[in-house]
Protein backbone atom coordinates (compact mmCIF):
# COMPACT_ATOMS: atom_id res chain seq x y z
CA UNK A 1 0.00 0.00 0.00
CA UNK A 2 2.78 2.39 0.98
CA UNK A 3 4.74 1.44 -2.13
CA UNK A 4 1.73 2.17 -4.35
CA UNK A 5 1.32 5.58 -2.73
CA UNK A 6 4.99 6.47 -3.31
CA UNK A 7 4.88 5.32 -6.95
CA UNK A 8 1.71 7.36 -7.65
CA UNK A 9 3.21 10.38 -5.89
CA UNK A 10 6.40 9.94 -7.94
CA UNK A 11 4.33 10.15 -11.13
CA UNK A 12 2.55 13.21 -9.80
CA UNK A 13 5.83 14.99 -9.04
CA UNK A 14 7.24 14.11 -12.50
CA UNK A 15 4.21 15.62 -14.24
CA UNK A 16 4.19 18.63 -11.89
CA UNK A 17 7.87 19.13 -12.72
CA UNK A 18 7.18 19.15 -16.48
CA UNK A 19 4.38 21.68 -16.02
CA UNK A 20 6.38 23.91 -13.66
CA UNK A 21 9.43 23.86 -15.94
CA UNK A 22 7.31 24.78 -18.96
CA UNK A 23 5.73 27.64 -17.00
CA UNK A 24 9.07 28.93 -15.73
CA UNK A 25 10.53 28.81 -19.23
CA UNK A 26 7.57 30.87 -20.49
CA UNK A 27 8.40 33.45 -17.85
CA UNK A 28 12.18 33.73 -18.18
CA UNK A 29 13.32 31.66 -21.17
CA UNK A 30 14.17 27.99 -21.69
CA UNK A 31 17.87 27.97 -20.80
CA UNK A 32 17.27 30.26 -17.84
CA UNK A 33 14.62 27.84 -16.59
CA UNK A 34 16.82 24.78 -17.10
CA UNK A 35 19.74 26.43 -15.31
CA UNK A 36 17.59 27.65 -12.43
CA UNK A 37 15.66 24.43 -11.77
CA UNK A 38 18.81 22.30 -11.86
CA UNK A 39 20.60 24.74 -9.58
CA UNK A 40 17.87 24.89 -6.94
CA UNK A 41 17.50 21.10 -7.11
CA UNK A 42 21.23 20.69 -6.63
CA UNK A 43 21.30 22.97 -3.58
CA UNK A 44 18.51 20.93 -1.96
CA UNK A 45 20.10 17.57 -2.79
CA UNK A 46 23.43 18.82 -1.42
CA UNK A 47 21.70 19.87 1.81
CA UNK A 48 20.22 16.37 2.13
CA UNK A 49 23.65 14.78 1.56
CA UNK A 50 25.10 17.02 4.30
CA UNK A 51 22.26 16.34 6.74
CA UNK A 52 22.53 12.58 6.20
CA UNK A 53 26.33 12.85 6.58
CA UNK A 54 26.50 10.79 3.42
CA UNK A 55 30.11 10.14 2.45
CA UNK A 56 29.48 7.67 -0.37
CA UNK A 57 30.58 10.25 -2.97
CA UNK A 58 34.09 9.15 -2.09
CA UNK A 59 33.42 6.01 -4.17
CA UNK A 60 32.88 8.17 -7.21
CA UNK A 61 36.46 7.49 -8.30
CA UNK A 62 35.38 3.88 -9.00
CA UNK A 63 32.64 4.99 -11.41
CA UNK A 64 33.42 5.25 -15.11
CA UNK A 65 33.60 8.94 -16.14
CA UNK A 66 31.04 8.29 -18.89
CA UNK A 67 28.41 7.17 -16.37
CA UNK A 68 29.35 9.84 -13.85
CA UNK A 69 28.77 12.56 -16.44
CA UNK A 70 25.21 11.39 -17.27
CA UNK A 71 23.77 14.42 -15.49
CA UNK A 72 24.82 16.64 -18.39
CA UNK A 73 22.18 14.96 -20.56
CA UNK A 74 19.59 16.85 -18.48
CA UNK A 75 20.23 19.95 -20.60
CA UNK A 76 18.92 18.13 -23.69
CA UNK A 77 16.10 16.44 -21.78
CA UNK A 78 14.87 19.69 -20.21
CA UNK A 79 15.08 21.67 -23.44
CA UNK A 80 13.08 19.09 -25.38
CA UNK A 81 10.56 18.59 -22.57
CA UNK A 82 9.80 22.30 -22.13
CA UNK A 83 9.55 22.94 -25.86
CA UNK A 84 7.34 19.88 -26.42
CA UNK A 85 4.96 20.86 -23.57
CA UNK A 86 4.62 24.36 -25.07
CA UNK A 87 3.82 22.96 -28.48
CA UNK A 88 1.45 20.12 -27.70
CA UNK A 89 0.46 20.04 -24.01
CA UNK A 90 1.54 17.73 -21.18
CA UNK A 91 -0.43 14.57 -21.96
CA UNK A 92 0.89 14.08 -25.49
CA UNK A 93 4.43 15.08 -24.45
CA UNK A 94 4.46 12.51 -21.64
CA UNK A 95 2.96 9.82 -23.89
CA UNK A 96 5.68 10.22 -26.53
CA UNK A 97 8.42 10.57 -23.90
CA UNK A 98 7.34 7.25 -22.39
CA UNK A 99 7.36 5.46 -25.75
CA UNK A 100 10.84 6.74 -26.62
CA UNK A 101 12.05 5.84 -23.12
CA UNK A 102 10.83 2.25 -23.40
CA UNK A 103 12.13 1.78 -26.97
CA UNK A 104 15.56 2.96 -25.82
CA UNK A 105 15.32 0.61 -22.81
CA UNK A 106 14.50 -2.32 -25.13
CA UNK A 107 17.54 -1.53 -27.27
CA UNK A 108 19.89 -1.19 -24.31
CA UNK A 109 18.57 -4.34 -22.57
CA UNK A 110 18.57 -6.52 -25.69
CA UNK A 111 22.20 -5.63 -26.47
CA UNK A 112 23.35 -5.43 -22.86
CA UNK A 113 24.86 -2.02 -23.53
CA UNK A 114 26.30 0.18 -20.77
CA UNK A 115 26.89 -2.70 -18.32
CA UNK A 116 23.18 -3.53 -18.18
CA UNK A 117 22.20 -7.19 -17.77
CA UNK A 118 21.33 -8.57 -21.21
CA UNK A 119 17.63 -9.38 -21.50
CA UNK A 120 15.55 -10.84 -24.31
CA UNK A 121 12.71 -8.73 -25.63
CA UNK A 122 9.41 -10.43 -24.84
CA UNK A 123 6.39 -10.58 -27.15
CA UNK A 124 4.35 -8.76 -24.49
CA UNK A 125 6.79 -5.85 -24.58
CA UNK A 126 6.37 -5.34 -28.32
CA UNK A 127 2.58 -5.55 -27.97
CA UNK A 128 2.77 -3.06 -25.09
CA UNK A 129 4.76 -0.58 -27.18
CA UNK A 130 2.33 -0.91 -30.11
CA UNK A 131 -0.58 -0.28 -27.74
CA UNK A 132 1.16 2.88 -26.52
CA UNK A 133 1.71 4.11 -30.08
CA UNK A 134 -1.98 3.49 -30.81
CA UNK A 135 -2.83 5.47 -27.67
CA UNK A 136 -0.73 8.45 -28.77
CA UNK A 137 -2.28 8.39 -32.27
CA UNK A 138 -5.79 8.41 -30.77
CA UNK A 139 -4.75 11.18 -28.38
CA UNK A 140 -3.48 13.31 -31.21
CA UNK A 141 -6.27 12.62 -33.71
Amino acid at each position, binding site marked *: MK*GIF*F*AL*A*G*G*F*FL*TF*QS*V*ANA*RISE*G*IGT*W*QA*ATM*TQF*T*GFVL*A*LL*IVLILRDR*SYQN*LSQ*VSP*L*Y*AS*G*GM*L*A*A*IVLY*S*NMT*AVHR*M*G*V*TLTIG*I*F*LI*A*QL*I*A*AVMIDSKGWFDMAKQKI*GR*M*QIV*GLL*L*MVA*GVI*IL*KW
Partner: protein
Amino acid sequence: MALGILLALMGGAFVCLQNTFNANVKKQVSVWSTTALVLLLGFLASLLAGLAFEGGSLFQFHAQPWFWFSGILGVGVVACVTQGVQILGPSRAISLIMVSQIFFGLMWDTLGWFGLEKVAFTWQSLLGVLLISGGVLLFQLGPKVEQHHALKRKTVEVSDSVKG
Protein backbone atom coordinates in the same frame (compact mmCIF):
# COMPACT_ATOMS: atom_id res chain seq x y z
CA MET B 1 3.48 19.63 -33.88
CA ALA B 2 6.09 17.67 -35.87
CA LEU B 3 8.94 19.43 -34.06
CA GLY B 4 7.25 18.77 -30.71
CA ILE B 5 6.97 15.06 -31.50
CA LEU B 6 10.57 14.87 -32.66
CA LEU B 7 11.83 16.67 -29.53
CA ALA B 8 9.74 14.43 -27.27
CA LEU B 9 11.14 11.29 -28.95
CA MET B 10 14.69 12.55 -28.53
CA GLY B 11 14.04 13.70 -24.96
CA GLY B 12 12.59 10.34 -23.97
CA ALA B 13 15.54 8.43 -25.41
CA PHE B 14 17.88 10.66 -23.43
CA VAL B 15 15.87 10.11 -20.23
CA CYS B 16 16.45 6.39 -20.64
CA LEU B 17 20.15 6.89 -21.35
CA GLN B 18 20.48 9.10 -18.28
CA ASN B 19 18.61 6.60 -16.08
CA THR B 20 20.95 3.87 -17.33
CA PHE B 21 24.06 5.91 -16.56
CA ASN B 22 22.68 6.92 -13.14
CA ALA B 23 21.93 3.28 -12.34
CA ASN B 24 25.62 2.54 -12.86
CA VAL B 25 26.62 5.43 -10.59
CA LYS B 26 24.21 4.18 -7.90
CA LYS B 27 26.03 0.85 -7.79
CA GLN B 28 28.85 2.71 -5.98
CA VAL B 29 27.29 5.90 -4.62
CA SER B 30 24.15 6.53 -2.52
CA VAL B 31 20.92 7.82 -4.09
CA TRP B 32 21.26 11.34 -2.69
CA SER B 33 24.92 11.80 -3.59
CA THR B 34 24.09 10.55 -7.08
CA THR B 35 21.16 12.99 -7.27
CA ALA B 36 23.34 15.90 -6.14
CA LEU B 37 25.98 15.01 -8.76
CA VAL B 38 23.41 14.60 -11.54
CA LEU B 39 21.79 17.97 -10.75
CA LEU B 40 25.14 19.74 -10.45
CA LEU B 41 26.17 18.50 -13.90
CA GLY B 42 22.71 19.30 -15.30
CA PHE B 43 23.11 22.82 -13.93
CA LEU B 44 26.59 23.26 -15.44
CA ALA B 45 25.52 21.86 -18.83
CA SER B 46 22.42 24.11 -18.95
CA LEU B 47 24.51 27.12 -17.88
CA LEU B 48 27.06 26.46 -20.65
CA ALA B 49 24.36 25.86 -23.28
CA GLY B 50 22.57 29.03 -22.15
CA LEU B 51 25.76 31.09 -22.34
CA ALA B 52 26.57 29.63 -25.77
CA PHE B 53 23.11 30.45 -27.19
CA GLU B 54 22.30 33.68 -25.38
CA GLY B 55 25.52 35.09 -23.96
CA GLY B 56 25.25 37.49 -21.02
CA SER B 57 21.52 38.02 -21.52
CA LEU B 58 21.10 34.60 -19.88
CA PHE B 59 21.21 36.42 -16.55
CA GLN B 60 18.68 39.12 -17.42
CA PHE B 61 15.36 37.80 -16.20
CA HIS B 62 12.62 38.59 -13.74
CA ALA B 63 11.83 35.45 -11.84
CA GLN B 64 8.67 35.12 -9.80
CA PRO B 65 9.53 34.08 -6.25
CA TRP B 66 8.13 30.55 -6.65
CA PHE B 67 10.54 29.82 -9.52
CA TRP B 68 13.29 29.50 -6.91
CA PHE B 69 11.48 26.64 -5.19
CA SER B 70 11.16 24.49 -8.31
CA GLY B 71 14.01 22.28 -7.09
CA ILE B 72 11.71 20.86 -4.42
CA LEU B 73 9.83 18.98 -7.15
CA GLY B 74 12.99 17.21 -8.26
CA VAL B 75 13.72 16.13 -4.70
CA GLY B 76 10.10 14.92 -4.41
CA VAL B 77 10.57 12.83 -7.56
CA VAL B 78 13.75 11.16 -6.32
CA ALA B 79 12.39 10.48 -2.82
CA CYS B 80 9.10 8.95 -4.02
CA VAL B 81 10.56 6.97 -6.92
CA THR B 82 13.32 5.51 -4.73
CA GLN B 83 10.85 4.49 -2.00
CA GLY B 84 8.44 3.05 -4.54
CA VAL B 85 11.14 0.97 -6.24
CA GLN B 86 12.44 -0.27 -2.89
CA ILE B 87 9.02 -1.44 -1.73
CA LEU B 88 7.49 -2.71 -4.98
CA GLY B 89 10.56 -3.63 -7.04
CA PRO B 90 11.54 -1.82 -10.26
CA SER B 91 9.07 -3.19 -12.84
CA ARG B 92 5.93 -2.79 -10.72
CA ALA B 93 7.01 0.61 -9.36
CA ILE B 94 8.02 2.02 -12.75
CA SER B 95 4.79 0.86 -14.41
CA LEU B 96 2.72 2.58 -11.70
CA ILE B 97 4.84 5.74 -11.90
CA MET B 98 4.38 5.96 -15.67
CA VAL B 99 0.63 5.35 -15.49
CA SER B 100 0.31 7.97 -12.76
CA GLN B 101 2.37 10.41 -14.84
CA ILE B 102 0.13 10.17 -17.90
CA PHE B 103 -3.12 10.39 -15.89
CA PHE B 104 -1.92 13.44 -14.00
CA GLY B 105 -0.92 14.87 -17.39
CA LEU B 106 -4.48 14.45 -18.68
CA MET B 107 -5.82 16.00 -15.48
CA TRP B 108 -3.44 18.93 -15.80
CA ASP B 109 -4.23 19.61 -19.47
CA THR B 110 -7.93 19.45 -18.63
CA LEU B 111 -7.82 21.74 -15.59
CA GLY B 112 -5.13 24.09 -16.89
CA TRP B 113 -3.68 24.45 -13.39
CA PHE B 114 -0.66 26.66 -12.90
CA GLY B 115 -1.51 28.77 -15.92
CA LEU B 116 -0.97 25.92 -18.33
CA GLU B 117 -2.99 26.33 -21.51
CA LYS B 118 -6.20 24.29 -21.11
CA VAL B 119 -6.71 21.40 -23.47
CA ALA B 120 -10.40 20.45 -23.48
CA PHE B 121 -11.14 16.99 -22.09
CA THR B 122 -12.53 14.53 -24.59
CA TRP B 123 -13.46 10.86 -24.20
CA GLN B 124 -11.07 10.24 -27.05
CA SER B 125 -8.15 11.60 -25.02
CA LEU B 126 -9.19 9.42 -22.08
CA LEU B 127 -9.19 6.40 -24.42
CA GLY B 128 -5.71 7.38 -25.63
CA VAL B 129 -4.42 7.63 -22.05
CA LEU B 130 -6.01 4.26 -21.16
CA LEU B 131 -4.32 2.61 -24.15
CA ILE B 132 -0.95 4.14 -23.22
CA SER B 133 -1.39 2.91 -19.63
CA GLY B 134 -2.33 -0.57 -20.81
CA GLY B 135 0.75 -0.59 -23.03
CA VAL B 136 3.00 0.44 -20.13
CA LEU B 137 1.57 -2.31 -17.90
CA LEU B 138 2.01 -4.97 -20.62
CA PHE B 139 5.55 -3.79 -21.29
CA GLN B 140 6.65 -3.71 -17.66
CA LEU B 141 4.71 -6.64 -16.22
CA GLY B 142 4.36 -8.86 -19.32
CA PRO B 143 7.80 -10.50 -19.02
CA LYS B 144 7.09 -11.30 -15.35
CA VAL B 145 3.81 -13.00 -16.23
CA GLU B 146 5.45 -14.97 -19.07
CA GLN B 147 8.25 -16.04 -16.74
CA HIS B 148 5.74 -17.10 -14.10
CA HIS B 149 3.88 -19.28 -16.62
CA ALA B 150 7.11 -20.80 -17.93
CA LEU B 151 8.07 -21.64 -14.35
CA LYS B 152 4.67 -23.22 -13.69
CA ARG B 153 4.95 -25.33 -16.87
CA LYS B 154 8.36 -26.51 -15.81
CA THR B 155 7.14 -27.48 -12.34
CA VAL B 156 4.28 -29.44 -13.91
CA GLU B 157 6.70 -31.20 -16.27
CA VAL B 158 9.04 -32.03 -13.40
CA SER B 159 6.24 -33.38 -11.21
CA ASP B 160 4.94 -35.38 -14.18
CA SER B 161 8.35 -36.88 -14.81
CA VAL B 162 8.66 -37.72 -11.10
CA LYS B 163 5.28 -39.50 -11.24
CA GLY B 164 6.27 -41.25 -14.49
